[in-house]
C-alpha cells in the first residue's frame, strides 16, 4: 500500500528533476527507493508529466508579440499617468477586433498557427534598423538587461569582438564625450549585431548599433544618412566592413553634434599609449 504523502509530494515534482534538491521531494524520492510499487508509479508519473509538459511548452507565442510588449513598456515609461486609459483601450480593443472581419480572420489564422506550432523559427522580416530600435527600447525600459556593463569603449569593443560580434572600429568623437554604460550582442536573422549604449543626459540614452555590411541588403554611404525609425532619430553610415546606426529618441539637432568628427579609435588609443 502506497504512502499517501510521498505520492502527493512526488506528484508535485517537476519532471525535469529541478526539484530534486528540495527536502520534501528528496525525502519522497528516498521513500520511493525503498518501495518498488511507489518507485514504479513515480517513474510512470514523471514520464507522463514530461510528455504533457513538453507538449504544452511546444506552443509558441504569436509572431510580433514581443514588439507589442515593447510598445506597451514604452507607453508605460512615457505616460505612467495614463495607464488606466491605455488598459481600458486594450480591453475595448478585444471587442472591436471581433467586429472587423478581415482582422478577425488574420487573428484566427494566427491562433491556428500557434496551436499547430507553425510559427516557430519564423524569419524576422523587420529591417535590421527596426529590429535594433525594438531591442534598444527593451534595454531602455529595463525589460531586458544589457549583457555587459562597462564604461570603457576599448574593453567594450574587445568583449564584443570576442563574442564574434561586429564592434565599432572608430568612435564618433562626439560620442567619446558621453558616458558609455554598457553593450549587448544580438542576432538578427542569424547575423550578429552589436549595440553600445551611452547616456546623453540623466534621462535619455543614445545607442550605436554595428552590423557587418555583408549582412544587410542595402548599400550605405560613408556619409551619415538621417532618417526616423520607429520613433528614433537615426543616422546610418558605413565604414570599411561595418555598417553603423546611431539612434536616440531625441531631435536630430541633438544627435548631429555627436557625429561632427570621427576619430580612429586605434589611432587615438595609440596616441594615448605613445604620448
Amino acid at each position: 500500500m502506497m504512502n499517501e504523502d510521498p505520492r502527493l509530494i512526488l506528484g508535485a515534482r517537476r519532471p525535469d528533476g529541478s526539484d530534486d534538491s528540495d527536502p520534501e521531494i528528496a525525502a519522497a524520492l528516498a521513500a520511493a527507493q525503498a518501495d518498488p510499487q511507489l518507485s514504479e508509479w513515480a517513474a510512470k508519473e514523471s514520464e507522463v508529466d514530461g510528455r504533457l509538459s513538453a507538449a504544452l511548452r511546444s506552443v509558441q507565442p504569436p509572431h510580433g508579440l514581443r514588439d507589442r510588449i515593447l510598445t506597451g513598456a514604452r507607453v508605460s515609461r512615457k505616460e505612467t499617468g495614463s495607464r488606466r486609459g491605455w488598459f481600458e483601450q486594450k480591453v475595448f480593443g478585444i471587442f472591436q477586433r471581433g467586429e472587423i472581419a478581415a482582422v478577425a480572420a488574420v487573428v484566427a489564422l494566427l491562433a491556428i498557427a500557434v496551436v499547430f506550432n507553425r510559427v516557430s523559427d519564423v524569419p524576422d522580416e523587420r529591417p535590421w534598423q527596426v529590429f535594433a530600435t525594438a531591442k534598444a527600447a527593451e534595454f531602455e525600459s529595463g525589460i531586458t538587461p544589457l549583457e555587459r556593463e562597462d564604461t570603457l569603449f576599448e574593453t567594450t569593443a574587445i568583449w564584443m569582438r570576442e563574442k564574434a560580434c561586429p564592434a565599432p572600429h572608430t568612435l564618433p568623437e562626439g560620442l567619446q564625450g558621453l558616458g558609455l554604460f554598457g553593450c549587448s550582442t544580438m542576432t538578427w536573422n542569424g547575423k550578429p549585431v552589436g549595440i553600445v549604449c551611452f547616456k546623453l543626459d540623466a534621462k535619455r540614452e543614445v545607442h550605436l548599433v554595428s552590423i557587418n555590411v555583408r549582412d544587410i541588403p542595402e548599400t550605405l554611404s560613408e556619409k551619415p544618412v538621417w532618417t526616423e525609425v520607429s520613433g528614433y532619430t537615426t543616422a546610418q553610415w558605413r565604414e570599411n566592413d561595418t555598417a553603423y546606426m546611431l539612434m536616440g529618441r531625441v531631435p536630430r539637432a541633438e544627435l548631429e553634434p555627436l557625429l561632427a568628427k570621427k576619430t580612429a579609435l586605434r589611432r587615438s588609443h595609440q596616441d594615448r599609449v605613445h604620448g
Partner: protein
Amino acid sequence: MDRHYAALFRFGLSLAGSADAASDLVQQTFFLWAEKGHQLRDPSKAKSWLFTTLYREYLSTYRRMTAHPQVELDDSTGELPAIEPAAFSSIDGASVVAGLQKLDDVFRVPLTLFYLQDLSYKEIADVLGTPIGTVMSRLSRGKEQLRALLSGSDAASGNVLPFDSKKGAA
C-alpha cells in the same frame, strides 16, 4: 523578457483560452513590470512576480466576464488509476491546452504552472496564495482529470480540436 514571455503566453493561453486574450494578458503583465518591476527588491522573485501578476490580471479582467459556478472541493485523493506513458507518446500542445480548458480553474491553474516547469510547487503556492498541501492535492486531482480527458478522446493521438479561440474574449 525573452526568458519569460513565451511561458507567460502559454499560461495566459491556458487561463483565457485564446491566443488573442493570452497576448493581451502578457502585454499587460510586462506593462506593469515596466512600471513597477524596479520596486522588486529581490531579483530572484521576478519570475514569480510575473506569473502572479498575469494571474491577477486574468482574475480581474477576464474571469469576471463569465459566471463561474462555485466548486466544492474534496482535497482528499483516491488511488490514482494506472497510467501508461505510451498513451501520451504523440500528444501535442493543442491537445493539452484543449484538455486544460475543460478543467475547472482550481485545477487548471496550478496544473498549467506545473507543466510549464518554470515554478516549483512552493512557488506555485505563492503565486496562487494557497497552502502547499492544497497545491499538491489539486495537482493530483487535476492530473487525474486531465489524463482521463486526454486518454478518453482522440486527444492522446493528437486529433483533438484546438481550444475555442473566442473563449476569454467574450
